């Protein structure tokens, strides 16, 4: 905009020359008078100018903050991989496999570490150590020692390499998948497994995946700040799309039924909790429960439970729940889960649906909702509010209570109206009756006059007669 005029220079000029009216006006040319303290702006323009400056400052500060964070992240990542130096490991983390502690075991550990890489572990989190104990117990409990040793050796090697590697997630994913494939092939050809049910190999593979997903979670899940930023922007986008939930998705849900709303709430809760566990199977379990709740809601609404009805509701739940780190969770599962989990079975089907819903939300535009482009943008930017609909109002208890009260009021009003009409009718009837009674009375009165009246009339007649007579007499005399 305008650069701030130097107030001193302005002062000088004022001393030397005659100040014209124009010099006193706001430099923005808005017609008001300006002041040197406000950079020759009027009060309004000065305020606007200050706000604009603050915005620029904030923006610049945020930018530096963000870049700093990125830098920190990168530094952390690189030091993490570097901190795996031999000395560090020796100092910090006594491996639980090495058992004993103290100086005398140190040499022993030194020797073992230099020969076998599996001792190169970092400090284990409680989750990781629990997973390790469970994993080892399972292997020992189900497999002969030679097989256990081989599997342990291979997984430990893979685990260490995963923690060490500094490669892009796609490559790491390829490697993890190849590792699964390799281990799977190796086990299938092992003497011990040849005579077993093929499903047993799969059980072992699931244990391996379970173990790896817990112990290398920090490395595999949301590995770069870029992905985290992607999650945040997705969350912001879903928030801006919240209006879509009010009737733009063509769902066959009955929002007036309390139990349907309950199922939807449960689905939202499960959808959010996908982010909590580390293990693939637990994450997929949450998704499965979420989807079953959706089917419950559809069933309670009396709608068919086919994919045609299911997907819109899943999208609805996704937008309503706006689950944290959704994209990272989806990527994590699709990159590092065993192929059969995401490609086949019920979990694979629902995971595919989740991916579809996610993609639909990401690419959602006026065309996918079949509406006007300007209308879509206005809703998204919050310029206009979507019309209230059953989908939204039904979910809002206050509004549904209000609706019920309003309905009750309406009933009361109609009843009152009816009552009033009846009262009026009644009043009219009374008037008519009264008139009729009066008539009757008159008639009766005419037909049957009272004795007093007759007497009175009679005497009045006599009186009149007398007066007339008297007048006649007077007339004569006069």
């Amino acid at each position, binding site marked *: 905009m305008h650069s701030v005029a130097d107030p001193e220079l302005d002062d000088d000029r004022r001393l030397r020359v005659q100040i014209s009216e124009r010099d006193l006006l706001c430099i923005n040319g808005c017609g008001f008078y300006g002041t040197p303290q406000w950079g020759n702006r009027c009060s309004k323009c000065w305020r606007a100018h200050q706000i604009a400056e603050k915005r620029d400052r904030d923006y610049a500060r945020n930018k530096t903050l963000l870049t700093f964070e990125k830098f920190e992240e990168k530094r952390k990542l690189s030091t993490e991989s570097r901190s795996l130096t031999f000395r560090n490991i020796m100092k910090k983390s006594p491996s639980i496999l090495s058992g004993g502690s103290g100086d005398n075991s140190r040499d022993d550990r030194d020797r073992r570490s230099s020969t076998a890489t599996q001792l190169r572990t970092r400090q284990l989190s409680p989750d990781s150590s629990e997973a390790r104990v469970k994993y080892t117990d399972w292997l020992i409990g189900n497999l002969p020692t030679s097989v256990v040793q081989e599997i342990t*050796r*291979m997984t430990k*090697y*893979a685990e260490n*390499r*995963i923690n*060490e*590697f*500094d*490669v892009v997630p*796609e*490559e790491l994913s*390829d*490697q*993890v*998948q*190849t*590792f699964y*494939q*390799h*281990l799977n092939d190796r086990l299938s050809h092992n003497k011990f497994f040849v005579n077993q049910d*093929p499903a047993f190999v799969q059980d072992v593979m699931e244990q391996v995946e379970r173990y790896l997903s817990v112990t290398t979670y920090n490395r595999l899940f949301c590995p770069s700040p870029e992905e985290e930023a992607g999650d945040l922007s997705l969350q912001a986008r879903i928030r801006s799309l919240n209006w879509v939930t009010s009737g733009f998705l*063509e769902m066959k849900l009955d929002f007036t039924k309390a139990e349907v709303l309950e199922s939807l709430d449960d689905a939202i809760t499960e959808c959010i909790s996908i982010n909590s566990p580390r293990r693939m199977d637990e994450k997929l379990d949450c998704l499965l429960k979420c*989807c*079953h709740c959706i*089917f*419950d809601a559809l*069933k309670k609404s*009396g*709608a*068919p*439970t*086919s*994919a*045609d009805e*299911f*997907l*819109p509701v899943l999208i609805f739940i996704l937008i309503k729940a706006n689950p944290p780190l959704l994209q990272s969770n989806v990527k994590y599962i699709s990159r590092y889960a065993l*192929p*059969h989990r995401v*490609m*086949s*079975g*019920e979990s*694979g*089907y*629902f995971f*595919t649906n989740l*991916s*579809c819903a996610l*993609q*639909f939300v990401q*690419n959602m535009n006026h065309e*996918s*909702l*079949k509406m006007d482009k300007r209308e879509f943008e206005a809703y998204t930017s919050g310029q206009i509010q979507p019309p209230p609909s059953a989908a939204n109002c039904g979910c809002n208890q206050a509004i549904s209570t209000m609706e019920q009260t309003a309905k009750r009021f309406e009933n009361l009003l109609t009843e009152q109206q009816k009552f009033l009409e009846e009262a009026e009718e009644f009043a009219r009837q009374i008037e008519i009756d009264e008139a009729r009674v009066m008539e009757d009375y008159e008639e009766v009165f005419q037909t049957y006059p009272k004795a007093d009246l007759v007497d009175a009339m009679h005497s009045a007649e006599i009186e009149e007669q007398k007066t007339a007579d008297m007048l006649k007499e007077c007339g004569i005399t006069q």
Partner: protein
Amino acid sequence: MDRATTSASSEGEYRFKVVLLGEGAVGKSSLMLRYVENKFSPTHSSTIQASFLSKRIDLGDRHVDLDIWDTAGQEKYHALGPIYYRGSNGALLIYDITDQRSFERVKVWVRELQRALGDTAVLLVVGNKLDLDKERTVPRAEAEQYAKSVNAEYLETSAKENIGIADLFERISALMVDHVEKQRSAQVHTTTFTTSRRGIQLVDEPQQRGSRCCK
């Protein structure tokens, strides 16, 4: 990126994924329900869900575990198709014989599938609602000829009257088994199951050690 789906784990055992593609209201879900539960109800309220089902089929000495995936058929979800049919071994393309438009949609899907999956998947075109034969607008001959032209089979069914449903799923299972076995015998000569060279890195092989870790 595409991982080979495990279509066979041991001799005579198969696991296949079949997607149902078809416009909304052509009866995809009814078809599925009829097959798995032998039920037809306009509201499907009996089962938890009718969009994913798993069924084991015996074809003589071969056993097939069939995963049947229903897909959302509305036009606005069309772009999501590839996510659904990725890695599937077969596709049932369903249309309503009384609705020409649904038949045209099938043609769109066939083109897409052939582009995306090549010859890895078996296609079967299904004309549903045979019970409404009187109101038919898509002649049987036309559909048969079309199916032939895209190297697919053609069947007609009625979910309502339970005509041809069991045949349909058995047929596609048999087709997929044939397809896989044919491909496998072709592959025997050129065993090309490459375990990618980089991939070995997570596997503890002495000669591979240190190849990248110093980076």
